[in-house]
């Protein structure tokens, strides 16, 4: 492990906060990550020195803002091994997936076609497709899961067929931690003439990403889950696909020529970024990408796998605790339940000890139905967590069991 995590913790001001008199143990990074001081400072600095609207004016502040914004597009492209003009900035994964569902889906999906998902998708990678299917009278199909929560490739081969136009899957499940076989699904999709949309919300923050190697046609992810600010997301798409997409959000900066009844579109990616974007947020995201690049995404990837596996193994061995999803080979999170204690009560008891976890359906109700539960508790990690935090987690589980068994 080349990460000196002890040093990284110090980069995140919030981690020195105390909660109910205890040191904060933040285990809710799958919901949103904490931000290093460098990211917070980049936004501050932008507002104090550079702030102006972009693409619009000739003055120095506007030039500097425009360059700062454009630089982050290049940083983002480098981060995922893509071209800068294939990177579209959005508010987050949700908007990115909605954009491709409407902009690409409405153009390409016809009545009788089908769209293929999995049962573990986050609502953000599910409801846009339900709605697309409704609008275009297409079918929604599901690649089933194996009992261990891994994807059934057999099912994938059955479900994807010549009427499949789009396949949309997460790279890593936000509930089970399942790592999906994206490359294999990409090949199946491409053989069928379909495009593959990858929900990278839980993967891009935690591992080196190469859109080409992955075989994706579109990739969506959120800055706020990878040390970046809230309100920034990315839709990456292959240029050939982006060229066939209709714009979805209409307004300033996404046009070329406008008269009273008609408008023509600006080049890609501007075409898909109508209105004043979250400029300061994008600048902050740039600082996040630089921060992660400095740690090294290969290091991050190895470290997160390590924490995920360790947490799984530790919780797996506790009595009266059910751990969901596949074995130790998983994303850096563990969903679990304590026998007889509702996950909301678990989270409340954890909070009393300064431990922040999430409880609920994790925006994945169909997966909850599949698991046969209403809700789970989930501990999720990021690069500022360490083995001690897993000890804290185990202790919190044990004391919660005792508390509610009295």
């Amino acid at each position, binding site marked *: 492990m080349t990460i000196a995590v002890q040093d990284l913790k110090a980069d995140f001001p919030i981690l020195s906060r105390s909660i*109910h008199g205890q040191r904060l143990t933040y285990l809710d990074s799958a919901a949103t990550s904490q931000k290093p001081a460098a990211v917070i400072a980049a936004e501050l600095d932008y507002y104090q020195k550079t702030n102006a609207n972009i693409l619009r004016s000739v003055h120095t502040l506007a030039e500097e803002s425009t360059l700062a914004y454009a630089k982050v597009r290049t940083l983002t492209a480098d981060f995922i091994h893509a071209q800068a003009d294939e990177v579209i900035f959005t508010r987050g994964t949700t908007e990115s997936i909605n954009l491709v569902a409407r902009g690409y889906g409405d153009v390409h999906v016809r009545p009788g076609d089908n769209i293929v998902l999995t049962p573990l998708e986050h609502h953000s990678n599910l409801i846009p497709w339900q709605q697309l299917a409704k609008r275009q009278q297409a079918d929604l199909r599901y690649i089933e899961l194996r009992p261990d929560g891994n994807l059934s490739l057999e099912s994938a081969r059955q479900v994807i067929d010549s009427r499949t136009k789009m396949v949309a899957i997460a790279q890593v499940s936000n509930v089970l931690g399942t790592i999906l076989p994206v490359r294999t699904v990409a090949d199946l999709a491409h053989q069928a003439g379909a495009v593959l949309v990858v929900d990278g919300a839980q993967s891009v923050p935690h591992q080196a990403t190469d859109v080409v190697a992955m075989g994706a046609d579109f990739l969506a992810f959120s800055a706020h889950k990878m040390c970046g600010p809230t309100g920034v997301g990315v839709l990456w798409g292959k240029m050939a696909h982006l060229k066939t997409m209709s714009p979805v959000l209409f307004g300033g900066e996404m046009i070329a020529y406008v008269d009273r009844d008609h408008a023509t579109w600006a080049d890609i990616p501007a075409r898909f970024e109508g209105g004043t974007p979250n400029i300061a947020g994008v600048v902050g995201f740039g600082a996040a990408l630089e921060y992660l690049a400095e740690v090294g995404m290969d290091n991050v990837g190895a470290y997160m796998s390590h924490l995920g596996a360790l947490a799984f193994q530790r919780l797996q061995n506790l009595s009266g605790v059910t751990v969901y999803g596949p074995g130790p080979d998983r994303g850096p999170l563990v969903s679990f339940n304590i026998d007889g*204690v*509702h*996950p*909301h*009560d678990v989270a*409340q*008891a954890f*909070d*009393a000890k300064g431990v922040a976890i999430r*409880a*609920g*359906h994790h925006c994945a*109700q169909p997966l*909850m139905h599949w698991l046969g539960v*209403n*809700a789970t508790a989930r501990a999720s990690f990021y690069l500022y967590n360490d083995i001690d935090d897993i000890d804290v987690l185990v202790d919190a589980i044990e004391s919660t069991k005792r*508390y*509610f068994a*009295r």
Partner: protein
Amino acid sequence: MNLDDIYRETILDHNQIPRNKGTLPNPTASVGLLNPTCGDQIRLDVVVADGKITDIRFDGQGCAISMASASMMTEAVKGHSVAEGLALARSFKAFLTGRPSEEDLGELSALEGVSQFPSRVKCATLAHNALEKALDPSKADLDALD
């Protein structure tokens, strides 16, 4: 924060041994409600006769707060008038959001500690929203299950 402020003995007791749990064969009103944050659901069956809640049962899965609150609520309103039931639900919701409540809330006042945690207030009020909806069909805006 002391966890015992939230999970008082009465609450754990009602959670472990819920009163009036189950369904009724011939309810005059039946309401399903969902807490969209956590996916918890409640089903409330009531029998109203001559302006009185003659029988009431709740069913569902949920956290200790929501189950205890439902259990206490059913005990508190059973045998009382529709007007009293509505007043209790209103008062309880006011109580949890820090507004003054006119009613004596009885055992339900044990849920006081929940008011510090807005996300848990939804758990505690789920059954009361269901009661309001069952007794007053004009309250259609509360999260209906379908």
